[in-house]
């Protein structure tokens, strides 16, 4: 992850940053707002809502402090938000760098070099014509597994959280049957989005999603304090920058609960998602320069994720320190019911009866956009890079995603979902690293043509 992050940061400042995706005369297909909204919605999915409150609170207060990043003592002045810093580490630069590297490699090999939009194309400099044979089949098949299992992890988490929300809003008791019915219902909505196509389906939903997410964020900022939100944000960002080298170091770590239990899982999960998000953002990024692409795919989402996490997680920590937030305490500290953390937090805020249903809808739309975009990507890979394959194929993959999520939830729940993402993400790490090398070769060639 560190090597990929450094590679992406280098692309911003090196001369190859001026290479334009699609050639020097290419024009962007989407406005900045639409492009960033789609990139963000595809890349984050349900994670912000699921982990925004859960993770910072868990690191700070659970396991009697054993899960604190770097074992830092939160009773020391200035360390009260160390859980937020640890969370930002998992949702920050290193994760987004993987998406940026994969997305950029695919975009350059497809739009500049005229190869099919599929993972194997990025290996052409290494494998030559062999990339169209079994080596390429292996790479693409690994990408399909990683994408599908990475995605179903998110879908499973989302379904559990919607079930928790239904209990809070309508009093429907969560159960395996409810979760299965939710996955079926939401997959059906995703199928509708698939049938509507990219512009009418996922793009519009992503924009609605962003508006609702921004609305929820502004509401939380207003009711928890504007000044304290931004003061906390700048404070945790400074801590994040200071602690980033230590947090990124895999050697000699004593904070095993944080590092083994969370960081390693997160890295595998980001990598599992990278073919999906990479292909999706490659597809929508024609006309952008490499510098523009990396800046927007790396810096902007990191800053926004950090703002979200510090607002939700930081406010929850403040409430717990003040002896409030019983709902959060019950779901994160006293018992581990992660799907209930967000609603436990929202319950402490005014207008809960309005905000809770809105949050529920927001989770559902995140679910739908992830499922829809994921089907699009898997379909493109399994159609040999064709972007206009028959829509029935996307319907097939969308349905299969729902089925895998159901199978994993019934066969082990959260542990199975996470285990599946990790087991497919890890082998894909080598693929991503080699892809960075091939991207560098391609960018050098493109730069020389300018």
């Amino acid at each position, binding site marked *: 992850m*560190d090597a990929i992050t450094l*590679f992406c940061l280098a692309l911003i400042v090196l001369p190859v940053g001026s290479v334009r995706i699609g050639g020097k005369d290419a024009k962007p297909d989407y406005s900045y707002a639409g492009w960033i909204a789609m990139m963000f919605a595809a890349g984050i999915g349900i994670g912000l809502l699921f982990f925004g409150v859960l993770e910072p609170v868990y690191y700070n207060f659970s396991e009697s402090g054993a899960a604190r990043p770097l074992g830092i003592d939160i009773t020391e002045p200035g360390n009260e938000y160390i859980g937020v810093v640890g969370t930002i580490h998992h949702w920050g630069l290193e994760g987004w760098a993987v998406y940026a590297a994969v997305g950029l490699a695919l975009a350059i090999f497809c739009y500049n*070099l005229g*190869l*099919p939009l599929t993972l194997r194309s990025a290996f*052409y*400099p290494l494998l030559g*014509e062999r990339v*169209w044979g*079994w080596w390429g*089949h292996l790479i*693409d*098949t690994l990408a*399909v*597994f990683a994408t599908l299992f990475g995605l179903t992890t998110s879908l499973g988490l989302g379904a559990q959280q919607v079930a928790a929300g239904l209990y809070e809003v309508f009093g429907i008791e969560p159960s395996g049957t409810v979760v299965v019915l939710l996955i079926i219902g939401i997959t059906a909505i995703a199928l509708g989005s698939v049938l509507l196509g990219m512009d009418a389906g996922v793009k519009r939903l992503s924009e609605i999603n962003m508006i609702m997410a921004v609305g929820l964020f502004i509401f939380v900022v207003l009711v928890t304090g504007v000044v304290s939100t931004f003061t906390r944000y700048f404070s945790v960002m400074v801590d994040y920058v200071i602690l980033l080298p230590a947090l990124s170091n*895999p*050697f000699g770590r004593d904070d095993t609960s944080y*590092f*083994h*239990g969370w960081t*390693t*899982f997160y890295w*595998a999960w980001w990598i599992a998602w990278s073919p999906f998000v990479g292909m999706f953002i490659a597809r929508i990024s024609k006309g952008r320069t490499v510098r523009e692409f990396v800046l927007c795919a790396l810096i902007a989402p990191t800053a926004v994720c950090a703002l979200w996490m510090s607002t939700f997680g930081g406010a929850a920590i403040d409430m717990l320190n003040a002896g409030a937030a019983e709902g959060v305490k019950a779901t994160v500290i006293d018992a581990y019911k992660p799907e209930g953390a967000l609603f436990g937090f929202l319950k402490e805020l005014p207008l809960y009866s309005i905000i809770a249903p809105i949050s529920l809808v927001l989770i559902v739309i995140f679910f739908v956009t992830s499922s829809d975009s994921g089907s699009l990507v*898997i379909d493109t*890979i*399994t*159609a*040999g*890079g*064709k972007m206009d*394959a*028959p829509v*029935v*194929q996307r319907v*097939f993959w969308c349905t*299969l995603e729902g089925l*895998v999520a*159901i*199978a*994993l939830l*019934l*066969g*082990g*729940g959260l*542990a*199975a979902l*996470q*285990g*599946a993402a*990790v*087991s497919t993400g*890890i082998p894909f*790490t080598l693929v991503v*690293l080699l892809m*960075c*090398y091939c991207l560098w*070769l391609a960018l*050098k*060639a493109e730069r*020389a043509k300018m």
Partner: protein
Amino acid sequence: MSETKKMLDPDPRVWDFETEYELGQDNIRPFGLDIHNPVFVISSVVIAGFVLIALANQEATASFFGWLRPWLTSTLTGSSSCRWMRSPCFVWRLSFCPSGP
């Protein structure tokens, strides 16, 4: 100056991105579909098989994944990280080596 020249004058292999491969040339088109033969077939059969096996053996699936996740995440740290870290270092070095590829 000589460094710049080296970067702009790389191994001709780097420039050879020409291919005769045509988009969809390996695709098959049964029942109006347009699918890449090995990738679609292998992926869909393995995943559909996984769903059936997982649904038929829910307890075994739970037990397997309950073991798999902690095993993978703990195996990937400590001494094994050294092996993993060598790959990024190697790629990084290759990428920015002045006499590079």
